[in-house]
């Protein structure tokens, strides 16, 4: 048996494997610590930009009849303020935090797909830059952050302003989608051995539920953006009521995302609170199980109340009652969490420090926002207050109270983990008071201006309506708030420069992230621990040095690979060894190719867009070229006398789970598309006496038959491979079958009447296009499996690509059947 290296020697060996070199090589980094910090730093830059825009808004509204900004510029400023704060700050900020924190909290060395993390970051940077450059060029979106049609449709926004929003935000959302899959898979599969679900820290529970919500919540927005962009670019009438579209479809799709989005932002913040509060209360969190139940209840209920944003559009009382009841009821699981936090503090021995100031600020501000939320859930009040400054006040109390105050608490709590230094405190306390007073002065008064009838989004107001002094005080409050944030920024910079160093765990916390050295090394933990108690009641100060000595799993570097562990989703029993890919420039190149696709669409170079898409797909196929094994390895030693198979030889590995997750997300998008088609059929005006959506029966039958054959052939190839049989012919036939299905679907699409004429033709055109695209993807997945098989990466034990091929082909077949099913429904009732 070889002698164990010293902690310093082990550190050097592991850092040589996991580290990122300086200079331009930083662009190739895939390390979650580096990328998490980049996400958060970029999100804070966007927060600064959004804050600057809010100052412009308050300067404009400080006095009546102001000529500071013209209405055109003002429209861009308030639209960009909301867009930047929601899409470029809040979502990426918690994504970055989760990317940085989760592996450390769970006892893993990185996330499940490091290259995907890097790709997501580049998409975020490039997509966000498109929006900011457009704003500097004076062509920023100007239709409000929720881009209602018909205002954002071509006739009323003929420039590229709306395209910038639709394409820029969709580009940025790639990072949200990739992060959701990563977070979901990492939490379920990459915890430290022994960390059963029932032992998982609450922050991981919150992020697991948040990731699940993102998987279901983001596709409707992405679909809505695609449909609106198709209407603007190719005149397909999904939202034009004169041709069978309906502006309300946009509102449904947007708010189906938009309301859960509020909880998607709040839950990670609540996760941070559930971590911080027990530390300062010096006792375990009260109601661990009740909080898990509350998070799940909140997640589901938040999907059942999107229509409360549409109470005034004219919907029947029954539907109003549904959504009103759900909107009020969601306050209960929120209250369960708030009472659990208060109970934890009340029954503990609270010690006050800077993070706790912001926790107190959260309680005050968020509870006010929650109460005005219950007021707005009531239809009669909502009708009165709709689109007034009362709503602006409410949403800022909820979002700033529910996200920014917990974020500031989290910054003061975890920044020492990043910097390795403690806070100076001199600026922290005045900063808090400036923020608390400035925020309430700014936004509490907006309740009053709203109740006095001031509508949102107006750029000026006359001086004789009694709003003058309230607006002036709001603007003064806004500038006080900004001073507070400037002090926080200065405090952060000073902490990095002058803060006192510490060794480990300055707060006497109970979670694993404080067991790392600070700042954390590239590999997080020199050894992976075995967890035997609930993982928010650990003693990091004792565990950390033991892990640095190598007391745990994988406390060696002799294989020269980036290794971490995969566990059973429920019990946390160690199941397999995961070898992660090394740093690479491929994510950057792929994101640049993706950027070319979006820019081509933005500048209407439609010939270039498919090339960008194909290059992106091609680069994605290059990603796994050097990954995988060409021989079965069997069980591999992971230390502590335990051996497990590699990830590639495990049936339920992270790649398979990630693809199942991606397919669930994809299915949500498709379900939203089918819902959209049926919604237009049932609700939209001008559907009488329109031509039926007709496709030839032979094309439908051939497409369904071919797609089903492709699915069966891919599944049989997988089974044959598992038995050690020959699978090449099956895969080749599966590819051919999907190509036949694609061609048949294309023929059916061409058979339809002009899709720009009416939604009855446009909907099947797009639905069939979706199905055809997925037949193509099924063929690509089978071809990929065939290629990997030929190169020797697949065996009866290593069959990941075969599983993926079977799944994607089965999905394609399902999509084809449903697409022709909807087309059939749309052919009924129309004139032939």
């Amino acid at each position, binding site marked *: 048996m070889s002698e164990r290296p010293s902690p310093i020697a082990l550190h050097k060996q592991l850092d040589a494997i996991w580290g990122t070199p300086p200079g331009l090589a930083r662009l190739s980094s895939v390390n979650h610590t580096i990328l998490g910090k980049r996400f958060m730093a970029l999100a804070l830059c966007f927060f600064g930009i959004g804050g600057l825009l809010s100052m412009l808004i308050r300067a404009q509204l400080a006095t009546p009849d102001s000529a500071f900004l013209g209405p055109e510029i003002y429209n861009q400023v308030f639209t960009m303020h909301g867009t930047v704060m929601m899409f470029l700050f809040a979502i990426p900020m918690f994504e970055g935090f989760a990317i940085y924190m989760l592996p450390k909290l769970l006892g893993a060395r990185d996330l499940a797909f490091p290259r995907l993390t890097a790709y997501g970051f580049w998409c975020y940077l490039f997509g966000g830059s498109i929006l900011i450059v457009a704003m500097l060029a004076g062509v920023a979106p100007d239709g409000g952050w929720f881009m209602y049609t018909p205002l954002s449709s071509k006739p009323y926004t003929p420039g590229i302003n709306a395209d910038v929003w639709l394409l820029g935000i969709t580009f940025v959302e790639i990072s949200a989608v990739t992060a959701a899959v990563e977070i979901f898979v990492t939490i379920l599969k990459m915890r430290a051995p022994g960390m059963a679900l029932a032992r998982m820290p609450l922050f991981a529970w919150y992020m697991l539920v948040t990731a699940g919500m993102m998987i279901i919540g983001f596709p409707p927005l992405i679909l809505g953006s695609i449909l609106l962009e198709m209407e603007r670019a190719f005149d397909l009438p999904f939202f034009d009521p004169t041709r069978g579209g309906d502006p309300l479809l946009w509102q449904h799709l947007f708010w189906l995302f938009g309301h859960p989005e509020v909880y998607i932002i709040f839950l990670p913040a609540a996760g941070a609170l559930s971590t911080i509060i027990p530390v300062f209360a010096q006792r375990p969190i009260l109601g661990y199980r009740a909080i898990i139940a509350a998070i799940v209840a909140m997640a589901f209920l938040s999907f059942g109340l999107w229509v409360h944003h549409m109470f005034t559009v004219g919907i029947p009382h029954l539907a109003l009652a549904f959504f009103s*009841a759900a909107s009020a009821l969601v306050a209960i699981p929120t209250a369960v969490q708030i009472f659990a936090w208060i109970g934890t503090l009340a029954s503990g021995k609270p010690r006050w420090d800077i993070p706790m100031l912001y926790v107190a600020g959260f309680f005050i501000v968020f509870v006010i926002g929650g109460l005005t939320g219950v007021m707005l859930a009531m239809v009669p009040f909502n009708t009165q207050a709709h689109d007034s400054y009362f709503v602006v006040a409410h949403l800022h109390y909820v979002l700033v109270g529910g996200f920014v105050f917990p974020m500031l608490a989290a910054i003061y709590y975890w920044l020492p983990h990043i910097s390795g230094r403690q806070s100076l405190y001199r600026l922290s306390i005045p900063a808090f008071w400036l923020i608390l007073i400035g925020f309430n002065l700014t936004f509490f008064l907006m309740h009053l201006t709203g109740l006095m009838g001031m509508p949102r989004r107006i750029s000026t107001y006359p001086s004789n309506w009694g709003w003058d002094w309230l607006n002036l005080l709001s603007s003064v409050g806004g500038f006080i708030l900004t001073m507070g944030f400037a002090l926080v920024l200065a405090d952060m910079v000073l902490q990095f420069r002058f803060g006192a160093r510490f060794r480990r765990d300055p707060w006497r916390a109970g979670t694993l992230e404080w067991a790392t050295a600070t700042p954390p090394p590239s590999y997080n933990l020199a050894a992976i621990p075995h967890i035997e108690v609930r993982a928010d009641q650990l003693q990091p100060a004792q565990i950390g040095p033991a892990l640095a000595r190598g007391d745990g799993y994988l406390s060696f570097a002799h294989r020269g690979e980036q290794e971490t562990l995969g566990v059973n989703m429920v019990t946390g029993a160690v199941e397999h060894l995961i070898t992660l890919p090394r740093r690479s420039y491929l994510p950057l190149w792929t994101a640049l190719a993706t950027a070319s696709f979006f820019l081509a669409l933005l500048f209407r170079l439609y010939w270039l867009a498919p090339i960008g898409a194909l290059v992106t797909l091609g680069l994605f196929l290059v990603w796994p070229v050097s990954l995988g094994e060409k021989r079965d390895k069997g069980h591999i030693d992971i230390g502590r006398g335990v051996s497990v198979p590699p990830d590639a030889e495990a049936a339920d590995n992270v790649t398979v789970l990630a693809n199942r997750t991606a397919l669930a997300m994809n299915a949500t998008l498709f379900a939203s598309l089918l819902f959209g088609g049926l919604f237009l059929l049932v609700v939209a005006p001008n559907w009488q006496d329109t031509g039926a959506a007709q496709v030839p029966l032979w094309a439908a039958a051939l497409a369904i038959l071919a797609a089903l054959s492709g699915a069966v052939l891919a599944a049989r190839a997988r089974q044959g491979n598992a038995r050690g049989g020959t699978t090449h012919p099956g895969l080749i036939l599966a590819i051919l079958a999907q190509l036949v299905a694609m061609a048949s679907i294309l023929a059916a699409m061409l058979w339809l009447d002009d899709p720009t004429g009416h939604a009855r033709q446009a909907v099947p055109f797009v639905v069939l296009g979706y199905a055809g695209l997925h037949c193509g993807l099924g063929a690509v997945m089978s071809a990929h499996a065939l290629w990997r098989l030929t190169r020797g990466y697949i065996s009866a034990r290593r069959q990941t690509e075969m599983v993926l091929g079977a799944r994607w082909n089965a999905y394609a077949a399902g999509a084809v059947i449903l697409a022709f099913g909807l087309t059939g429904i749309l052919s009924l009732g129309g004139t032939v």
Partner: protein
Amino acid sequence: MIMRRLSHPLVRLVAGFVVWSVAFVVLYAAQALGCAYGWGDWHRPILWLLFLLALVPMAWLALPGPRHDHQHALHTAAVWTNRAALLAAVLIFLPVTFASLCT
């Protein structure tokens, strides 16, 4: 098959609210379809029926099922979550019994 899947703690944790979500979509769709296609006097009884049908599996899920000791915390959380789903279904879907359907 369903019973085997329900023995998975994560499935059991979300099962009640999954049923709630399906019922929500079905009831909302039935309300819209009934108005669009003029179901007349049948409209409310159909909604009543769907409402009661949704409550059956949710009530069953709200009962404490067999538990495994090593997942005690998850088991309790699942029971509470499923009871919350049942309560949410009763309160949110109750308007199908009295609110005006199409106006």
